[in-house]
């Protein structure tokens, strides 16, 4: 633990010569030559870690291109913000369910990633946290993502300086 400055001749001298003030100046001077930490978004972008939790999306099976979702409603159940809305119907052959619509309301979503947890289509979960994070929009409707958007993602917006 840093000791409190004690009284003494040396300390008195230090005080008189404003020593600690010079040390402080030296620190700021030195840091001028350190690499800067600014990332000039949108010109530069930070590198996201593989686990980054962006907006939740659905995905196709990478090989056969089928929808992975089996309409089990688990993500809808576990979602703390009620932002997932699934409509499903019985498959015609009576075995299991078929997805009719799948909506995520990004206005409500808190990006907690809990929906990915229980997804039964392991190891590749149907719902996953994508790396998209630019989702500004001028209309509220733009935040309710239907199945098509969820699967294909929004067209990347072109941010220009």
């Amino acid at each position, binding site marked *: 633990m840093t000791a409190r400055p004690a009284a003494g001749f040396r300390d008195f001298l230090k005080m008189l010569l404003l020593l600690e*003030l010079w040390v*402080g*100046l030296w*620190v*700021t*001077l030195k*840091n*001028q*030559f*350190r*690499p*800067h*930490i*600014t990332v*000039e978004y949108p010109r530069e972008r930070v590198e996201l870690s593989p686990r980054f939790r962006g907006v939740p999306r659905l995905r196709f099976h990478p090989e056969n291109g089928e929808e992975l979702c089996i309409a089990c409603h688990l993500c809808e159940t576990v979602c703390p913000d009620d932002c997932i809305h699934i409509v499903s119907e019985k498959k015609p052959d009576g075995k299991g369910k078929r997805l009719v619509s799948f909506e995520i309301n990004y206005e409500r979503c808190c990006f907690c990633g809990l929906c990915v947890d229980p997804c039964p289509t392991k190891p590749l979960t149907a719902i996953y946290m994508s790396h998209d994070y630019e989702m500004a929009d001028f209309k509220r409707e733009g935040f309710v993502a239907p199945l098509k958007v969820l699967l294909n993602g929004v067209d990347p917006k072109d941010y220009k*300086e």
Partner: protein
Amino acid sequence: MDRQALIQTLVIPAAQILAVVLVLPLVIAYLQLVERKVLGFMQVRLAPRRVGWHGLLQPIADAVKLLIKEDTVPEKSDRFLFTLAPVVTVIPALASLAVIPFAAEPFHVFGYEVNPFITDINVALLYLLAISSLGIYGVILGGWASNSKYSLLGALRSSAQMISYEVPLGFAIIGVMMLAGSASMVEIVNAQKAAGVWYVLPQILGFFCYFIAAVAETNRVPFDLPEAEAELVAGFHTEYSGMKFALFFLAEYTNMIVVSSIVTILFFGGWLRPFPNAAALAFLENGWLLFVPLVAGGFLGWLADQKLGGGLRLMFAGGIAGAALGFLIARSDVLGLAGLQVPAVSGVFWFSLKVSFFLFMYIWFRGTYPRYRYDQLMALGWKWLIPLSILNVIGTGLMILITG
């Protein structure tokens, strides 16, 4: 009056004043950019970069923004004083520049001698003290007229602060006046030349007292209590916006330049080169040393490029360009560029170099230190600076007595 005299007494001073008033806002705008840049680099970030190349047009953008911004006046404020306050802040700041000599050798323009200062009066220092004591009115009136409690507190703080720090400010320069035997700025620098030494050496205590008191007087960190944004939001100019705010801003930075100039003149030999009487260094006089910043700037620029990229390059590029320009002007006799006056430009070069250093100190302080508290500030002024500056006067007197 004949035409010659008319031009000498009226036209030239008017032109000088006009030049100061017109050039100064531009200088300040870029000083502010430099402040943001340097502060940014100290804080390992990049500072403005979006407007213009490396943010070079940022000051223009800021100025335009301030000009076209809505000029709000609080409803229950005293309109008259509210408008008056920024004006009376700026006027003393600008008026101080009248007696500050940027160099000694006159320029020759259209066959007329134009001094690099507006006037050289024999009570210049007293004039500066008197004028700077008026700057407080803008702060105190602005704070009061805003009819806001935060502003009022800021105004009260600053009035107490500025009154207190004027005393050590005045005492600290008495030593210099005693040594030089004059209160005229030009005479003081000439005395330093005659003495062969900058007064910072015999007046080190006076210099410290003056500089600290001056930082306090200009309300800059670590003495920026009147506008401490963490406590009083923005102190006396909380309610100001648009052009009025810009005027306060202008005054603050003008004061910084004035104070840096005074320190340079009083303690650092004004436009004199280092070791003004050492014949071996006479080449500095005609600008050979300008080579040094050229080479150093080039080296540092290269280094910055290697290590960092981006930000610092700008500074060094500017440094190199400035040094190259200075070199060209200073070597104009050799290069055959007629009409450019070497001694005057050399003086202005040294002067601006020193002033820039002190302006950098201001920014450096801002980047480094916490803020004093009101009572500590008062204690520092009254318990340390005033006794020390009086001690300095006594010491200087003894020194003069002993050495004759």
